[in-house]
């Protein structure tokens, strides 16, 4: 089984990536990077990462979230985060990234925020 599983679905003009597993150095970080690059190539620039199933992330994974955020912003898009686990929320808090990312607990609210 892959370290990080990513399922893509479309909700209006927002692309939701339902992620489960680990975003850690190596396979997990690469999988996230590849998915974001592909979406940008397909001109899908409104992206919601559903992280409910991501139980673990390391500094490389956090770096990949930052890299995704800046790449999408640079391309005129928006990246938002949904359903952070408590541990991920704690990590984003101590790294001061919780103030950078737009974070939501409910999908409907997250999708509406793109409008």
């Amino acid at each position, binding site marked *: 089984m892959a370290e990080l599983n990513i399922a893509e679905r479309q909700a209006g003009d927002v692309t939701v990536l339902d992620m489960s597993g680990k975003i850690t150095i190596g396979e997990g970080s690469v999988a996230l990077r590849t998915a974001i690059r592909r979406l940008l190539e397909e001109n899908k620039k409104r992206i919601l990462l559903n992280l409910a199933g991501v139980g673990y992330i*390391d500094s490389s994974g956090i770096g990949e979230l930052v890299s995704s955020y800046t790449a999408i912003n640079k391309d005129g898009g928006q990246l938002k985060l949904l359903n952070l686990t408590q541990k991920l929320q704690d990590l984003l808090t101590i790294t001061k990234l919780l103030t950078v990312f737009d974070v939501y607990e409910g999908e409907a609210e997250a999708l509406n925020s793109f409008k």
Partner: protein
Amino acid sequence: MTLETTDFSLPSHIEAVATAAAAVADFVSRNGVSEEAAFGIDMAVREAVTNAVLHGNKQDETKAVDLILKSSPDAFEIIIHDQGSGFNPNDVPDPTDEENILKTSGRGIFFMRTFMDEVHWLIRPEGGTTVRMLKRR
């Protein structure tokens, strides 16, 4: 009194990170550890081994990463050696400074210091770097 000590070596490729984390998780689990401490140790070990493989040994598979795990009634001690040329941890910028928040790397040492009670680096005279981390029970 040390309850248990174990040591092992891993090759310098990135898969060593998960191997080390699994071995350390098994070690701390059989020596009794809280869930919170286990999480912190796991984070710190992954970051330390990542640094040893990438920055210390530069993924040269002829160089090993050596780990020593010690359990005592008071604490877990984790010692990780690489064969790199060393670095000054004080030269690593604070990733929480405003100008560094959006950097895509540079948080590993911050996590090690955050999740462990003590972290010390030693550049060994015979070559290589040792990081010693302590997590009190």
